[in-house]
């Protein structure tokens, strides 16, 4: 009891910089248990905690700062790491071992510099204001967004990787985008001449202007646009804003002023242990110079972070000995890959080239002088070759007899390297250094879900480039262990929902019994397959769900066309398209609510929910609502719920289009569409976005020229911003795209899969979806539209259908043999309305007061 606990002396570790690499260092320290030895403080200059800079351009595609964050808000605090965000470190006092910030001094025992880099802006006269934007941080992106308001055209200076990313960002802001590059080709570091040509052709086809071998002399006031960029050769280009992305420079100012050794081309010099010239100070990521080189990719930074974290944790560490600069990217939707010695600079190396000028595809394979191994590759237009080539290059796998097969179009018998051909040491995820062996260990430990694997190894959670390979290896390893990946809907159908949908359409099946008899097992089905098939039948043939053969398939809420609440009563939601309602309509709803003593609440979808109706009251309630012109709101269905809207140009001084009119058009078109899950829409009349369209499955935002379409957003448990899908559409095109998008979703989604999850599961992502919907790449568009038209043409209010049929109404009886209501349902009054009584309140209710 008097025992003395000797306090473990913990040293202070300060990490300067909270970018991806600085954050990874913290994660690695946490994982390796180093927090037992160190009190860790992190200083970040930016207000936001570490975020994913690799996917920065998605910030304009709908992702917000929170969804780009590298960790949850409480991650640091929960591990006892103190984060000082928005606090700049001004100086390092190496003698006293202190860092100096605006808030004072802070002593350290060890220091890690992870200050990253900053964009290089060449000294050009007139480069200021909106003609001197950069693309590096979220604040930079906010500045670009602000500059883009009212702008028509934007120019990016720099045709490298980041420059093309920036051009993509400008494009997604709706600007006409141009790229100006000093070198005679795009991505001069990663691509050779033919690769650059192919990329240029593809990017120009996307409507982005490409100007090569152009040196900007000065920027002056423009005539048609805000600025004019005057080039060396007397030519010029006018624009409303200019983003500089002409390379990065290591942010080494702190190290420089502290007298640390600096590399010839910048960067704090580090040795193989990532130690600077001061043994108490490490440097990692883009601020560090190793062997004269600064590495501008995230993977080498992560490797350095691991090297440092291992040393601080007192573990054996792998020295940093350079990095593979191979990259696989999608720039402006174009696949670009570069592996190893892409330029064939190795003396005696030989190259194989495949050039397809028709589709602007290019592939180059560089092999060693002895012709036995891959030492480099360039890919433009199709990265499906990348994983295999990278594994050949990294693992020194012996080339097949005919190496050109590795880059010839698939279907020519290209010898794809199967997952089984990879050695255990093969790196699958280079961001988190996950090998095939590590994946196998997880499989041996019993992991059978891809999500579990990702959580356990972090594989495919960095840049995500290895996701397809990871899945392939994982499924191969599962199969090798005799684990079958079961995609059956349930025990009655050995099919996925997508497969069943196809069967129903192709074979023209109209009933559950028929489908079960032909393709399923047993005679009954279950609560998994019945609603799923019910939904498929409704999507395909749109027969009333109240038909006797369809009724037993429906989920509880669909069966009685109302939403069951916790006490077994129902809530009723009449459709109020676009949230527009007349005073007469409001009065009727009020009268019905009053007559049946229903609790009323305004919903998030701009309608009115009436709670507390018993089963036998539903037909009477609906008879009154229908008589007043209301229709069912499908609040109970996996179907279109609401189209929320702002008042738009009709009333609002800022509105540019009639958002209510469009909301009515859309809601009346798609009401009744049964789908794998519920669907919500919204229409905003201007860019202020009062209808919150970017949080919906389908969001429409007015522009001066038409409508911007956003897809696949949702609120709920895991909110997701919708992504910009198409811009400045006229009414007809907008509806055509939505028809195709929704029907493609109905056709291919899994059961109970919202559009957001479905969209994330699509191989090829948003670009694939755009290709299917906009470019009709599958040749399905006409069919999707005609299916939708069928649903639209056969719409019928389900409640009107039931009200007119005495047989169908028989089910709406609380008891088949007694007229009394359910005596166990009790309400109490609260704030002027009734609500279900809680168990603790039941003894207060007189037995006589049965409702």
């Amino acid at each position, binding site marked *: 009891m008097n025992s003395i606990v000797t306090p473990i002396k913990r040293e202070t570790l300060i990490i300067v910089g909270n970018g991806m690499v600085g954050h990874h260092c913290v994660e690695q320290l946490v994982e390796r248990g180093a927090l037992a030895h160190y009190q860790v403080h992190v200083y970040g200059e930016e207000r936001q905690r570490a975020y994913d800079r690799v996917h920065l351009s998605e910030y304009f595609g709908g992702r917000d700062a929170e969804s780009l964050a590298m960790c949850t808000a409480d991650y640091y605090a929960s591990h006892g790491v103190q984060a000082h965000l928005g606090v700049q470190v001004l100086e390092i006092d190496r003698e006293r071992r202190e860092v100096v910030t605006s808030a004072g001094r802070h002593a350290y025992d060890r220091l890690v510099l992870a200050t990253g880099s900053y964009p290089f802006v060449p000294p050009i006269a007139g480069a200021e204001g909106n003609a001197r934007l950069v693309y590096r941080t979220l604040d930079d992106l906010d500045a670009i967004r602000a500059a883009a308001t009212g702008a028509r055209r934007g120019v990016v200076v720099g045709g490298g990787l980041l420059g093309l990313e920036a051009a993509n960002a400008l494009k997604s802001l709706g600007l006409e985008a141009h790229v100006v590059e000093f070198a005679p080709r795009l991505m001069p570091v990663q691509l050779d001449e033919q690769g650059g040509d192919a990329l240029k052709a593809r990017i120009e086809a996307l409507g982005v202007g490409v100007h090569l071998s152009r040196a900007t002399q000065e920027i002056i006031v423009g005539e048609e646009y805000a600025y004019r960029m005057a080039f060396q050769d007397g030519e010029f280009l006018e624009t409303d804003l200019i983003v500089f992305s002409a390379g990065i420079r290591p942010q080494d100012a702190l190290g420089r002023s502290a007298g640390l050794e600096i590399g010839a081309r910048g960067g704090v010099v580090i040795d193989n242990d990532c130690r600077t010239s001061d043994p108490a100070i490490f440097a990692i990521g883009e601020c560090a110079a190793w062997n004269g080189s600064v590495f501008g990719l995230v993977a080498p930074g992560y490797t350095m972070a691991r090297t440092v974290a291992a040393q601080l944790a007192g573990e054996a560490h792998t020295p940093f000995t350079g990095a593979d600069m191979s990259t696989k990217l999608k720039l402006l939707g174009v696949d670009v890959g570069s592996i190893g010695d892409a330029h064939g600079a190795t003396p005696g190396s030989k190259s194989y080239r495949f050039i397809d000028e028709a589709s602007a595809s290019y592939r180059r394979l560089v092999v060693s002088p002895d012709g036995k191994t891959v030492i480099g590759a360039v890919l433009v237009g199709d990265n499906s070759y990348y994983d295999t080539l990278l594994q050949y290059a990294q693992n020194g796998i012996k080339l097949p007899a005919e190496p050109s097969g590795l880059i010839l179009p698939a279907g020519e018998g290209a010898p794809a390297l199967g997952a089984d051909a990879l050695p255990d040491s093969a790196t699958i995820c280079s961001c988190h250094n996950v090998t095939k062996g590590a994946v196998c260990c997880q499989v041996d430990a019993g992991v059978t879900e891809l999500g579990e694997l990702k959580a356990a190894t972090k594989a495919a959670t960095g840049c995500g480039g290895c996701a397809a390979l990871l899945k392939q290896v994982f499924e191969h390893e599962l199969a090798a262990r005799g684990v079958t990946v079961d995609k059956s809907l349930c025990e009655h159908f050995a099919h996925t929902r997508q497969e069943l949908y196809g069967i129903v359409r192709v074979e023209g099946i109209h009933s559950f019994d028929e489908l079960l008899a032909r393709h399923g097992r047993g005679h009954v089905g279950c*609560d998994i397959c019945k609603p799923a098939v019910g939904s498929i039948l409704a999507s395909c043939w749109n027969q009333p769900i109240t038909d006797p053969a369809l009724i*037993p398939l429906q*989920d509880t809420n669909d069966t009685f066309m109302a939403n*069951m609440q916790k*006490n077994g009563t129902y809530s009723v939601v009449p459709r109020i398209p676009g949230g527009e309602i007349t005073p007469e309509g409001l009065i009727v709803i009020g009268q019905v609510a009053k007559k049946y003593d229903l609790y009323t609440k305004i919903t998030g979808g701009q309608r009115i929910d009436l709670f507390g109706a018993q089963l036998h009251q539903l037909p009477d309630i609906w008879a009154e609502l229908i008589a007043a012109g209301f229709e069912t709101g499908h609040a109970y269905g996996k179907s279109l719920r609401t189209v929320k809207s702002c008042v738009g140009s009709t009333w609002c001084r800022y509105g540019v289009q009639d958002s209510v009119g469009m909301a009515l058009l859309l809601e009346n078109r798609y009401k009744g569409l049964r789908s794998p899950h519920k669907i919500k829409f919204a229409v905003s009349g201007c860019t202020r976005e009062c209808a919150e369209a970017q949080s919906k499955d389908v969001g429409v935002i007015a522009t001066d020229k038409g409508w911007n379409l956003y897809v696949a957003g949702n609120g709920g448990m895991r909110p997701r911003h919708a992504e910009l899908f198409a811009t400045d559409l006229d009414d007809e095109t907008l509806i055509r795209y939505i028809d195709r998008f929704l029907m493609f979703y109905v056709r291919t989604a899994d059961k109970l899969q919202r559009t957001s999850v479905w969209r994330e599961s699509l191989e090829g992502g948003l670009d694939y979806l755009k290709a299917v919907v906009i470019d009709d790449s599958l040749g399905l568009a006409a069919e999707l539209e005609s299916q939708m038209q069928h649903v639209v043409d056969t719409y019928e209010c389900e409640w009107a259908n039931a009200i007119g049929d005495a047989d169908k109404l028989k*089910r709406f009886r609380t008891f088949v*043999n007694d007229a009394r209501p359910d005596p166990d*349902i009790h309400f109490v009054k609260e704030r002027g309305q009734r609500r279900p009584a809680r168990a603790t309140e039941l003894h207060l209710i007189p037995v006589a007061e049965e409702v």
Partner: protein
Amino acid sequence: MSPINAARTQTARSAAAAEWQSLCARNDLVANSGVVAWVDGQQVALFHLPDSGAGEQVFAIANKDPKSGANVIGRGILGQIKGELVIASPLYKQHFRLADGRCLEYPEQQLKVWPARIAGDAVEIAVN
């Protein structure tokens, strides 16, 4: 004959001495779905399977969902899990065997069941 059917025949036989009470007409039932009858202060859910592969069947099971305390079992979805006929509660989706009322997910939950039959036009259960 499926095991369930065998079990049911047995219950029916042991209840032979009991009194059969008529609850409603055959056409009050909903094929492959449920309705609820009021039986002297008790709520009985009646499920009708015109053809479940073992001929026409009708089941009677208590209507109160033990988890929510609400009288909703009669409004659940009929199904078959590993060969056994079950009803899924509409609120929290747990499954009860029609044969004996046992809950698959929470074995401590059990619903009362009654032998049931269709006699001519009448739907009957055996009450003790």
